[in-house]
């Protein structure tokens, strides 16, 4: 058996670098070379679970109906800040079918005395059906003492007690850099709160068997849910089993356990019945996380010929009531361009609104909008082509660490993107549309992100007597097609058809697997799966060698056959399988650490073409060209879907989405899918997707890194820049609504 050792590893997760110890086994292998003849990896494959998902057979947490299960509905505060004086459950308990009403007096571990936002939990009602519980929730009478509150970000920024500095960064001397500048752009950008609105709501179902808890939960991170819930209810890790078979989206908002998980676990134990606690759409919009609204100030200084001399970026992010962490809005400014003098600061701002959470490239989406808008404003002032300005300040080395990148092909993203978008058609001042009031314009923006993944991640593969394989890993598929990618990797090394590889994932009794977040799932787990498959193959070859009477080192696997190097002896694997009777070949693999001497990052460029109606302010996005560099693409079809989804989500962020808060009552006024405007299929433009073909061979044994988040990062700035190009309206506030376009046109 290969020996185990503990290694130090640096992983970039959601825009921040974490150094952690990890246990790895055996030795790693190099990535497949560019000319390796691969049968599965690098080829488009339909999703292995596609039929289940589209036919309704896939079972999500919200679908689960256990015998005897009860339903929990949370009673929530209508006040943005208040003290709970008294909870009277008499009327609720009198309703037929109500099992229990629990509040702070009966469950201090679940509820606080003070509530800090509209929607904060105050009590929970358990009923025989969801409807009964919902009806009873309205009958719970609660007396509050209202307290002062602030929901508006700008108002909160003015109140020092609500602002904390969380990150600061500098290199060189920004002040000197600005003195050296011929031209300075100094602009203020603001972005709205974006709500995840996952199709499948957040929720959990809990069932106890003695001291053992099984928790079905819609989550991106089963192991973190297990850890969090075990801690909250003081259970041992092995007494908590988390299951997530299928899930309908998370986008960062399901990276840990929720209050609903604790409610389900605690009440299931108390009442001795399984408990289901699943959010409704309104709760999704109030309490399950969001992308912070921001206020950002960006200053860029440059010489006449466009060389950046200084960059300053200060960001205030409204985190609601979350006062632990804040997303790195200034990350792109710190790391994208070659500029000697940089200074940035990141502030967290507390408001009486629902807590923020990670949301697909948290911080980088907001920050890239500001940075890449400012770059275009600078290009405008310098009368330079926006793309030329970006090229001029291209960072060959990582500006923060001074290290080389494992791969950087941003220049190719720019040139290929420009070609696909027809960038040469772009004119300063835009071009005419079909009518005098329609103007067309083009814009570009850049993305930089992590997504290299890293240990810990483990997988085992069991080869069955009939030549089918089961990959077992502590993985959940957030909906991005991870399952398919993993199956392709295993099938590749095992030389099996894809249908013969099954995945046993979606629960925490399996070997530890990473969260489906930070664009790191495939890059973390894929290499471990590959090593597990190599381990199986090695054992299989030994068996085949025995049967073929040659040495194992002399044969290899191709196309379902063991083939001897010399003499051309050939043995079908199926024959090997049939000769053996009951057996299990077990392969093991673990993820090895990332290289120390290079920085792993993904890059990409988006080009937007828009049409602006200058009389009504309406913006129509006609086309988005997205070219990314992430190294090897395991499944081009899946990768393309990933980019299309990211662009669509970014489109909403750019032009139509935004939480509306009523400043006087502190309520979210558009906590539903009618008023919170996610793009419809009619809004989605032509999306052209390409990837730079070069491999990232230093990254890991796949030769590629993650793609989950990169495609949402650059789109908003590309659209804003295209709008400015089309009609001169520089909108510095997201979303770019007709009202804002008209206002910018008037300036």
């Amino acid at each position, binding site marked *: 058996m290969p020996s185990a050792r503990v290694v130090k590893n640096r992983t970039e997760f959601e825009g921040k670098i974490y150094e952690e110890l990890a246990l790895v086994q055996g030795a790693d292998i190099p990535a497949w070379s560019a000319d390796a003849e691969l049968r599965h990896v690098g080829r488009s494959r339909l999703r292995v679970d596609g039929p289940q998902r589209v036919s309704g057979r896939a079972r999500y947490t919200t679908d689960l109906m256990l015998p005897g299960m009860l339903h929990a509905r949370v009673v929530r505060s209508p006040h943005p800040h208040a003290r709970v004086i008294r909870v009277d459950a008499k009327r609720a308990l009198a309703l037929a079918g109500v099992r229990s009403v629990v509040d702070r007096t009966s469950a201090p571990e679940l509820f606080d005395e003070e509530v800090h936002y509209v929607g904060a939990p105050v009590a929970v009602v358990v009923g025989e059906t969801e409807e009964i519980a919902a009806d009873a929730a309205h009958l719970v009478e609660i007396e509050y003492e209202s307290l002062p509150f602030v929901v508006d970000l700008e108002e909160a920024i003015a109140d020092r007690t609500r602002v904390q500095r969380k990150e600061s960064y500098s290199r060189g001397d920004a002040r000197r850099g600005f003195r050296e500048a011929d031209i300075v752009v100094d602009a203020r950008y603001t972005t709205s709160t974006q709500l995840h609105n996952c199709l499948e709501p957040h929720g959990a179902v809990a069932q106890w068997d003695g001291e053992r808890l099984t928790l079905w939960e819609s989550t991106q991170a089963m192991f973190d849910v297990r850890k969090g819930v075990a801690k909250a209810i003081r259970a041992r890790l092995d007494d908590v089993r988390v299951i997530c078979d299928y899930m309908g989206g998370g986008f960062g908002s399901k990276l840990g356990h929720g209050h609903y998980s604790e409610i389900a676990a605690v009440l299931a134990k108390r009442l001795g019945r399984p408990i289901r606690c699943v959010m409704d759409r309104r709760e999704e919009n109030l309490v399950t996380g969001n992308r912070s609204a921001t206020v950002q100030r960006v200053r860029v200084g440059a010489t006449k010929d466009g060389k950046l001399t200084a960059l300053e970026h200060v960001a205030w992010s409204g985190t609601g009531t979350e006062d632990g962490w804040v997303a790195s809005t200034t990350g792109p400014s710190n790391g994208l361009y070659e500029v000697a003098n940089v200074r940035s600061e990141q502030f967290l701002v507390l408001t009486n609104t629902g807590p923020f959470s990670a949301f697909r490239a948290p911080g980088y989406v907001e920050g890239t909008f500001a940075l890449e808008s400012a770059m275009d404003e600078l290009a405008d002032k310098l009368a330079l082509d926006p793309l030329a300005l970006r090229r001029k300040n291209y960072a060959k080395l990582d500006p923060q660490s001074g290290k080389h990148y494992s791969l950087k092909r941003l220049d190719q993203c720019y040139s290929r993107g420009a070609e696909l978008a027809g960038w040469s058609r772009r004119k300063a001042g835009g071009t005419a549309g079909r009518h005098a009031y329609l103007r067309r314009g083009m814009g570009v923006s850049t993305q930089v992100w992590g997504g290299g993944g890293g240990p810990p991640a483990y997988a085992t593969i069991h080869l069955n007597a009939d030549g089918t394989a089961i990959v077992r890993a502590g993985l959940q598929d957030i909906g991005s097609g991870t399952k398919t990618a993993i199956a392709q990797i295993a099938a590749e090394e095992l030389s099996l058809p894809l249908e013969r590889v099954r995945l046993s994932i979606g629960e925490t009794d399996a070997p530890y697997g990473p969260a489906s977040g930070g664009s790191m799932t495939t890059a973390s787990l894929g290499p471990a799966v590959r090593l597990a498959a190599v381990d199986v193959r090695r054992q299989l070859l030994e068996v085949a060698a025995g049967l073929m009477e040659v040495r194992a080192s002399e044969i290899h696997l191709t196309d379902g056959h063991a083939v001897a190097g010399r003499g051309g002896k050939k043995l079908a694997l199926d024959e090997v399988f049939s000769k053996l009777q009951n057996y299990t070949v077990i392969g093991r693999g673990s993820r090895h650490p990332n290289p120390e001497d290079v920085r792993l990052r993904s890059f990409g460029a988006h080009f937007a073409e828009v049409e602006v109606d200058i009389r*009504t302010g*309406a913006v129509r996005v006609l086309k988005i060209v997205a070219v990314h560099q992430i190294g090897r693409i395991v499944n081009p079809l899946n990768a393309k879907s990933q980019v299309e989804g990211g662009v669509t989500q970014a489109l909403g962020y750019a032009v139509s989405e935004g939480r509306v808060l009523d400043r*006087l*009552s502190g*309520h979210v*006024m558009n906590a539903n899918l009618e008023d919170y*405007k996610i793009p*419809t299929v*009619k809004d989605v433009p032509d999306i052209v997707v390409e990837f730079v073909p070069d491999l990232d061979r230093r990254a890991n044994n796949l030769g590629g890194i993650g793609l989950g988040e990169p495609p949402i990062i650059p789109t908003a700035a590309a659209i804003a820049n295209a709008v400015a190009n089309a009609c001169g309206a520089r909108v510095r506030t997201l979303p770019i609504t007709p009202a804002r376009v008209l206002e910018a046109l008037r300036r």
Partner: protein
Amino acid sequence: MKSFSYAKVATAEEAAGLLKQRNTRLIAGGTDLLGLMKERLIEPDRLVDVNGIAQLRGITATKENFRVGALTTLAELAAHQATPLIIKEALADAATPQLRNMATVGGNLVQRNRCWYFRSAEHRCWLKGGPRCLAVDGDNRYHAIYGEGECRQVTPSDLAPALIALDATVVMRTDEGEDSLPLAQLYVAPTARHRREHAVGDDDLILAVRIGGDALRRHATYLKFMERATWQFAVVSVAASARLVEGRAQDVRIVAGAVANIPWRVKAAEDLLAGEKIDDARALAVAERFVRDARPLRDNAYKVAVLRELVRRAVLRLKD
């Protein structure tokens, strides 16, 4: 949702009888009613389901008369070959295909407004009997740009402005039989004593909507402005119609939706077009006149610009 009893009726008489009971509501497609009930904005004790009344369904069309039964769905109305073009335009972007399959003409005309304070169970605004309008000092980006009343909600229906532009009448059931009145008269700005967007009582039954022959021959068009390509109530909409006599406009109607408590007309703007040839300058003048008296709130000045442009475009389209 509060529990309720439910009765399905087969005749208008039966329905009328049951609707006289206290706290009873008629349900047609249910697309608005059920939403209000789920939010507990209304809590009826009884629902009277009129979907079994065959006489309320379907379209009869002659050269001189177009009559659509109140229970006809928006999808059926949009698909019928005799339906005037302006109605088809209005329905093309009304709600979503799923909703249009359920939503009925009658329900569409008396649906409640979409003001987000009104729709929120946790806000007790003036229209719901509270002391004042919450939109005036709140977020009023979608609210009224005309009108003086306390309440600043706007008309949600796409169908109403288009029908009013064709001088449609609504046929109501009375104890004596039928009674017709101009559709426009259904809409009244709420007053302190009548906090409702229209004059239809809970026990009233709309039987049909009718358009007369003259109006059927007018040039007419409907424009709707949204912030996404579909599935949004109008931010602003404009229905315009006119008869063209030797290139000159007669019987001009310009009806704006989503800008006031009621479908909004500006007589002076219509008069500017009457008897005139339609050209760019005239269209612009009419549009300018239409918005001259608009009084936007803090967040909705953009609606004036949008309205001006929609009126201008709608008028120009009457030429074709």
